[in-house]
């Protein structure tokens, strides 16, 4: 398998996996502690509408995904400040509407959409070099933001009410954090596709959380777990000639299952 590294497509795939894992370890930690996985699912499916728009108007679908995921994240963020009761419904509506827009626009696009399947389910072996550049840029933005506003993000995700009475800019920080979730979702679309994003965003964080009690160590753990899972998934998918996105998710799910079982056993042993 070492011989594979001579191929550019395989080196690109590994690099894309590493970049995406780093972003999802950082942002996924917030998604897990703040229980935002349904929100993340909504954002990633809504992004499909942007992919369709890219096809229809003839620009890079990933740019459309950025646009739609950001707009849906900001919509969710602004409405959640007003009325908590209808949040669940709203996310479900955004989720399905985004998908529907994408499907319609692709149907109206003349000709055949060759890599449509890879946007839905991911195909990391097809990541072009220019996408790596975009992913690298997004990772710098995400990591930089979290380093600069670490204390603020911790405050609003632990107890946003207290942050409000401290007169921190809770609304803005919340929207910014959701935007980082949206950008991470875009990075993950290349790796596992819009449908499978939630799993990769939450599993590394959830596993890491079992063995840490600090937010930043949870992030580091999630990054490492995400990279191992992604690289193992890529290698395995190549070895057994299976779709890469689905393989990565199944590897992640197995790691999650094993971690939960181990945690249960440890918990019982402690009494």
């Amino acid at each position, binding site marked *: 398998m070492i011989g594979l590294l001579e191929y550019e497509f395989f080196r690109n795939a590994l690099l894309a996996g590493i970049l995406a894992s780093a972003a999802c370890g950082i942002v996924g930690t917030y998604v897990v*502690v703040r229980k935002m996985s349904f929100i993340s699912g909504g954002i990633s499916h809504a992004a499909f509408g942007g992919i369709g728009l890219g096809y229809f108007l003839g620009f890079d679908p990933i740019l459309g995904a950025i646009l739609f995921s950001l707009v849906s994240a900001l919509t969710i963020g602004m409405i959640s400040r007003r009325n908590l009761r209808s949040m669940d419904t709203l996310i479900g509506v955004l989720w399905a509407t985004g998908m529907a827009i994408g499907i319609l626009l692709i149907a109206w696009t003349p000709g055949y959409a060759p890599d449509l399947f890879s946007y839905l389910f991911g195909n990391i072996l097809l990541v072009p070099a220019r996408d790596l550049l975009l992913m690298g840029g997004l990772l710098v933005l995400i990591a930089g933001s979290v380093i*600069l*506003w670490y*204390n*603020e993000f*911790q*405050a609003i*995700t*632990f*107890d946003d*009410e*207290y*942050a*409000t*009475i*401290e*007169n*921190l800019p809770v609304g803005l920080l919340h929207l910014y954090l959701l935007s980082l979730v949206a950008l991470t979702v875009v990075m993950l679309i290349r790796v596992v596709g819009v449908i499978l994003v939630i799993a990769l965003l939450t599993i590394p964080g959830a596993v890491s*959380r079992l063995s*840490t*009690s*600090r*937010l930043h*160590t*949870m992030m580091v753990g999630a990054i490492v777990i995400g990279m191992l899972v992604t690289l193992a998934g890529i290698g395995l998918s190549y070895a057994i000639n299976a779709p890469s996105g689905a393989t990565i998710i199944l590897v992640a799910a197995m790691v999650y299952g094993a971690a939960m079982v181990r945690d249960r056993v440890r918990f019982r042993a402690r009494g």
Partner: protein
Amino acid sequence: MAPIVEMKGVWVRLGGRSVLEDVNFSLEQDDFYGVIGPNGGGKTTLIKVILGLIKPWKGEVTVQGENPEKNRHLLGYVPQYRTYDFTYPLTVREMVLSGRLGLVPGPFRKYRGEDHEKARAAMEMMGIGDLSDRPIGELSGGQQQRAIIARALVSQPIALLLDEPTTHVDPQMEEEFYEILRSLHKRMAILLVTHDMTAVSAYVDKIACLNRRLFTHGSKEISEDMLEAVYHCPISLIAHGVPHRVLRSHEEEP
């Protein structure tokens, strides 16, 4: 001196239901004020209105003579225990420090030496100085409650607002807990809302009853009329051992 908190004719409606009706209330500089009332009587709402988290439908609320939003950072808030997610990966020190985040200059807030010092002092005052590196999830209920109070103290507030603070304090620790509040009272005003009125009555200087309407009495005597107006079921309360007048003996009064 203007009162720290003043409410004039405050009405609050939530979801079409009135939660507070024509509430007039003021918290003075040296008050140790207890507000009792049944669950659902609007106790949490009262505190949230003072903090500007809930806007009144009618009436006026001021903190130090200004809008709550402007001056709420002067208040220390101890929310109800059950509102927390104690599985959040956070140490006691980090939690207490977060009470100073609003005082740290932005846009990228990093804790300074003085913030760490104030946090250490607050943790020591609450008797959790040796727990500062422990995850909040590993603490007992009483220790978690102390951490929440330490976070409220770390910004050196002029008043402390506590919402049902003894829910998770062991009965044998309760007395010690109220002694801590009594010592804090030397430095700041205290407003305590609770449904547990036997415990409160021995420590507070003023008492009011809240069940949508606020019944104040000026002193800490609770009359049978007030209880009846608030609870509508004085007999069951008396059956549970609540005396008609809940008072510390007069000899202890200054």
